[in-house]
């Protein structure tokens, strides 16, 4: 008798239905799997594989209620992501997952939601934003803060216009460095926090961005008197398996791929390697 092993690593085929070049470095992929929908929670990720090249963990960026397909937004960062960028509609890539703990959207019902996304950090937040907008009456205010390095790196331009039009979404954005035709805010994302008028007791902040951003955003939220257990963060680490085995994603005793990538800040504030 021979038994097959490692079925947990076997990817399913995902067909690229549509792609969209979002910026010079970021490309959107709309994917379809045979037994779709994917069945993910907002904030979860998949391992994407390009056979012969490798795998990369990528957040699911679309909300779970947006039809049978799902969307990934991929930044060209190295070999796998570059190989993905070479693929167009009709091509196939491998997908396994979804993995990890996402944002607890059920538990947050009734809360005001404050989304804070830095750069590509908006990509995983977007799935939670979709969820909140698709269940709009379940939540209080929806405030979205978004910062990028410069205007060229702004993602989801069309969607942002829609958010701006809605009167049940408050959207603010800033860029670190402007350009001659940039009319909006200039400055780091933390500058958007002090002017906010928040209902402190009923607000939950959901934060995702580059590693250096967290410390400053959390300080700014603290000075707004938000408690540590009102802040969720999504963390990025080197990942190889997504199954809590390969060890690459550890922060102290935690495994980001299984225990995270979304953590309640109060749960990790004393975890020394977290932020």
């Amino acid at each position: 008798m021979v038994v097959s092993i490692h079925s947990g690593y076997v990817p399913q085929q995902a067909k690229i239905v549509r792609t969209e070049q979002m910026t010079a470095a970021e490309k959107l992929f709309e994917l379809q799997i045979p037994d779709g929908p994917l069945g993910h929670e907002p904030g979860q990720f998949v391992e994407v594989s390009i056979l012969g090249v490798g795998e990369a963990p990528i957040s699911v960026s679309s909300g779970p209620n947006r039809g049978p397909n799902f969307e990934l937004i991929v930044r060209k960062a190295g070999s796998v992501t570059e190989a993905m960028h070479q693929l167009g509609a009709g091509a196939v890539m491998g997908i396994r997952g979804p993995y990890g703990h996402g944002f607890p959207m059920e538990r947050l019902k009734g809360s005001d939601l404050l989304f804070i996304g830095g750069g590509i950090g908006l990509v995983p937040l977007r799935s939670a934003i979709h969820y909140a907008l698709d269940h709009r009456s379940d939540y209080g205010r929806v405030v979205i803060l978004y910062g990028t390095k410069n205007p060229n790196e702004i993602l989801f331009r069309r969607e942002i216009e829609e958010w701006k039009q809605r009167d049940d979404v408050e959207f603010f954005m800033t860029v670190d460095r402007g350009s001659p035709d940039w009319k909006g805010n200039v400055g780091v994302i933390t500058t958007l926090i002090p002017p906010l008028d928040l209902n402190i007791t009923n607000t939950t902040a959901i934060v995702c961005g580059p590693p250096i951003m967290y410390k400053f955003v959390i300080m700014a939220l603290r000075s707004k008197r938000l408690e540590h257990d009102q802040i969720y963060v999504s963390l990025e680490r080197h990942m190889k398996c997504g199954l809590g085995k390969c060890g690459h994603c550890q922060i102290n005793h935690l495994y980001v791929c299984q225990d995270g990538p979304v953590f309640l800040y109060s749960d990790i504030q004393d975890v020394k390697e977290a932020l």
Partner: protein
Amino acid sequence: MTAKKVRVGFFDFTGCEGCQLAKVSMENELPQILEHIEIVNFREAMSEKSWDMDVAFIEGSITTPACVERINRIRQAAPILVTLGACSTIGGINAIRVGRDLDEIRQEVYGDKRYLFPSLPVMPVSAVVKVDASIYGCPPNPKDVARFLTQFLAGKIPQAPKYPVCIECKLQGNACLLVQGIPCMGVVTRAGCGAWCPSKGQFCYGCRGLIPDANLDALRISFEECGLSQQEIDNKLHLFSGRELEKLS
């Protein structure tokens, strides 16, 4: 696959010529490789615009102003430039000259005619032009070259490991030579050769160059404990990594 063959040019600089594909004991794989690549020869007199190639493989290190000029021309013509072997990748065994009086070496090598050959300090290709990828080793390991080529042809710019030979040595289950007092360079040397030498009971002499942040102070202590003199330690370190050491200091 019937995709268009990748056009590859090979260019020799100063080196021992032990790196050429056919010589890296890849005779068996060569026919399969040639299904995917086409080796093109250029007459160097032609203008670089007519050098129609996808990749340039560079063997040997940069030692003269003429080398500098030539590598610049190749770089202009090649969309992707790959160094092959220790000489072109890390300055190689040539870099023994680093730290020695150039005139003295010229005397040794060229005798009385030395002033006809202006020499530069031995440089890896990356000291002069941008290098897209490197095949390490002196000589390169056939398996590593095969891995490089397949990854490359699959559309990946292959990266050599940044961890030391010890990882591969332990995958083989070898008992550590350094622990037994044999001065093995594997602890500071870039992996990728499958711990070729220690697996045969010979110490690693560091042909793939240093890993980033190699702990050289610790290496000196360990090598002293092996009974090596400072001079012997310096020689061992400079054999392949003279150029890298220079950069560090």
